[in-house]
């Protein structure tokens, strides 16, 4: 249940995140100053936190969405125990994955 509403909340977050992504894309084409301003923002601590949460939202929505596809298509994972465990795995995957991405982006 919690995973279901999280799916919705992350979906809404990603909806508005896409506006920022498009702004970044438009800045890439039209305005060097705006693009560099966005790059600086992303590099700041606040920007890094936003990027981290963004990654958490993307990974959660991706993993949980994949589960929805398995539910709807081959009907896999309906058993309550499996479903509950899988929800927890999705949260863990989202945070660990986002941490991994952050590490890969900053340390490699």
């Amino acid at each position: 249940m919690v995973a279901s509403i999280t799916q919705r909340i992350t979906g809404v977050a990603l909806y508005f995140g896409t506006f920022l992504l498009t702004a970044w894309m438009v800045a890439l084409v039209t305005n060097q100053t705006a693009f560099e301003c966005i790059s600086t923002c992303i590099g700041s601590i606040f920007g890094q936190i936003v990027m981290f949460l963004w990654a958490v939202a993307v990974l959660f929505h991706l993993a949980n969405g994949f589960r929805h596809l398995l539910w709807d298509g081959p009907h896999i994972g309906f058993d309550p125990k499996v479903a509950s465990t899988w929800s927890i795995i999705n949260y863990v995957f989202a945070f660990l994955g986002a941490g991994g991405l952050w590490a890969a982006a900053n340390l490699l």
Partner: protein
Amino acid sequence: MSDNNFISPTKTARGLGSSKSGTSHHIRQRVSAIALLFLVPWFIYAIMTASGMDWASAREWAGKPHNALLLMLTAGAAIYHMCLGMQVIIEDYIYTPGMKGFLLILNRFACIALFAAFALSVLKLWIGADA
């Protein structure tokens, strides 16, 4: 109902479901999800590659044919998917008829505008790149 028709409206409607477009919406949502299952991992990799670049190299990167193609596909599938998703959220939580209609139209317009802005940007970089 005409005078000669003795079948009640309930009888006529029974068994036909909601007579709306829910199934089609559901399938579209799932099909775009399947596309995104492949496109989003690439997009994460792309953002990590491109976000560290300066303006000129990021432009060059986005203008490369395969990157431009995948950016366009990702934007198309993602914006379509989120448009459908937001539509359901509005239908679920907004009960005032006027506000509901307004938000549904706003959602459509915003998503189409977003895709147009994104697509034109990618096209410009792709066409502008000498390849």
